[in-house]
């Protein structure tokens, strides 16, 4: 009797697990039957604009709160089944919510997103090894950026940069680093973009401290200074706070980083997917 009960207790989760597994297998094989369908793409676009554009931008190229969906790269899975699940159920622990769409509407949104993607991403012709060398020495990238626990703190951690950023986006970040400033993603719990803003603080002695704002509110500011140290202030204790509205990242112009060297660097960054 006791063992029978025990067996049932074991069997139930096992069966549930198997069913989930089989279901997952089935879903993974699902292809979007509406891909390329002009009407579906038009419907998907309208639904995208109504449901997704507030965060991902009207043309899906990214907005204040969420990344571009036309780069061909998706942090939470790029298959049709992955997109279907992400759109309907959201991504736990992120700002991405589940959406109130029917299955058909969801497939239409996916058809729209696929229609916006580059047909095939330009092959990066560069030498990843040369790019890696540049990153860690002559380029000075590692003085501010961390990769797998090595490197500086001031800039974003690049360990998985290519999982969500296209080569075009990274190229723009290198050539025109201040252009995407307002693109700073919102941190959960914040309603205004603050991360990554360059700030100059003049403290009471007259000394100027430059850094990246990690947080700020009406009465205080928390800074990571150029030396990579945290500097924490009450606003009442400082003389002035200036938001520079430009990135601390230097411009990597063609004179500084030639196009072939850029290709090498992109080839290296392409390998950084957090895998």
């Amino acid at each position, binding site marked *: 009797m006791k063992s029978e009960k025990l067996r049932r207790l074991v069997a139930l989760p096992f069966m549930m697990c198997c069913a989930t597994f089989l279901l997952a297998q089935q879903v993974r094989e699902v292809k979007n039957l509406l891909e390329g369908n002009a009407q579906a793409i038009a419907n998907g676009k309208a639904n995208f604009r109504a449901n997704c554009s507030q965060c991902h931008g009207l043309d899906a190229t990214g*907005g*204040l709160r969420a990344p571009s969906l036309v780069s061909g790269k998706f942090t939470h899975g790029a298959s049709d089944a992955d997109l279907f699940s992400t759109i309907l159920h959201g991504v736990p622990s992120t700002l991405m919510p589940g959406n109130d769409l029917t299955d058909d509407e969801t497939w239409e949104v996916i058809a729209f997103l696929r229609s916006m993607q580059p047909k095939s991403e330009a092959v990066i012709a560069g030498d990843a090894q040369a790019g890696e060398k540049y990153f860690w020495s002559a380029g000075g990238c590692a003085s501010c950026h961390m990769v797998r626990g090595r490197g500086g703190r001031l800039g974003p951690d690049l360990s998985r940069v290519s999982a969500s950023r296209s080569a075009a986006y990274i190229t723009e970040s290198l050539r025109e680093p201040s252009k995407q400033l307002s693109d700073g993603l919102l941190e959960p719990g914040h*309603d205004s973009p603050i991360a990554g803003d360059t700030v100059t603080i003049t403290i009471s002695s007259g000394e100027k401290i430059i850094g990246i704002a990690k947080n700020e509110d009406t009465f205080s500011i928390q800074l990571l200074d150029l030396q990579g140290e945290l500097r924490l202030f009450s606003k009442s204790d400082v003389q002035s706070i200036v938001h520079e509205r430009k990135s601390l990242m230097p411009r990597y112009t063609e004179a500084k980083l030639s196009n072939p060297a850029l290709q090498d660097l992109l080839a290296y960054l392409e390998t950084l997917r957090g895998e």
Partner: protein
Amino acid sequence: MRKRSSRQFLENIAVVALLFANISAAQVTTARIEDASREPGNWLTYSGTYDGHRYSGLKQITTKDVSQLAAQWVFQTPVTGKFEATPLIDDGVMYFTVANSNAYAIDAQRGKTIWHYERALPEKLRLCCGAVNRGFAMLGDRVFMTTLDAHVIALDSKTGSVIWDTKAADYEKGYTFTVAPLVVKDKVIVGVSGGEYGIQGFIDAYDTKTGALAWRFHTIPGPGEPGHGSWEGDSWTRGGAPAWVTGTYDPELNLLYWPTGNPAPSNNGSQRHGDNLYSNSILALDPDNGKLKWYFQFTPFDLHDWDATESPILIDSTIDGQKRKLLLQANRNGFFYVLDRTNGKFVLGKPYAKQTWAKGLDANGRPVLLPGVDPTLEGVPVCPGAYGATNFMAPSYSPLTGLFYVTSREQCDVFSADSQNYRLGRAYIGSNYVPVMNAKDRGFLTAIDPKTGDARWRFEYFGASWAGTLSTAGGLVFSGDIGGNLIAFDAQSGKALWHFPTGAAVYAAPVSYEVAGKQYVAIGAGNAVFSFALP
């Protein structure tokens, strides 16, 4: 002997105190709510008093000692979601709602649970803006709240037991409630949410004793009713006009002032040409039968989601040597309005925040539009954005300073319009809006002189705030910011005198109350309520 008589004396005092306690513990009556300003130790209705002032007569905490204010208790709830409710307080007990149609009664002096109401909610709720609720109304030994699945319920104020539970509308069709009800006489009055789902808006009154529907006012006039012609074709059947923020009431005129929200779909007017009555309006209703006495529409044929759902404030004032009964509203469209509340006539209106859509208001208060502000497929930048120059966050009025205090926002959106087929109960917006890039949100506490409509002072927050306001007889205004601070301001000068970081963005409005001779200021933020007093 001497000892004995002093004990007798103490016992006598105790008996007298008990008598007083019984008096103050008297049931909440309509008379008490009408005269709520005479018992500032309690907070008996959403805006403190029927006139919507959110002004506390308590003055233990003043501009001189507010810097000493200290947390007395923090009450944590396990319910996550935005905290938008205004707590009610009667006789040392605090009643408040939280997200997901949950609610609590707690000891307002010690922060301890008395009861917790949990509601089993269906899964597929249609919620545009979070699973929020803005609080209770009370009468007798009952508290009244609305629910996300579109019911109105009455709970026993001592136990939280459900006395009645009335279904007002069908949540599957996009109807929901977030509003704090208003009790007027023997009725509990509520307005519906769902302007993003193509509903037909309404304001309802229920019998406080039985929960039976007493009257319903449809905020979109049906065929044959005056105003019906302000809708093109059958667009009125899905025209929105919700009523999701609590109104105010003038017992002398026996008029209820209730604000209404946007026409649907909010961004695309191509199939609803006309003024779209009574969207974005103040409605003056007879609370006994729901009959419309007058209306004033702020934004006719709105294409920018500028609900007029901001609490109207009622004051009596002298304008051009004449005593006037006035209604004040800082509207989401960026203009501050003063109306004659006896007849709805426009008195004055001026912008109080950045706006790029109107040249001004005409003699009747109707906006004179600038060209090129209608949403297009590509998108058109307009200020204020869809969240408006203010929103549901409660303003306040101090008779001490004669100033109107409102949380104002300066943020612009790119509005786009696109065709969208209507489907029952589904989002019906007609495309969308996105923030203008490279422009930071700015937010202020703005003090407006209602005699002129001009701002007396502005305090700039970091970022745009969603917090409501409270004015007090101690010469203070309390509000909060997106960084999570509860802040005390000098009501005259706008100087920030004190702040406390609650740790979560503030969406609620502060209240003040008194227990055992001590003045408290309380605010909901995150999943908690915080209460402060002088040491």
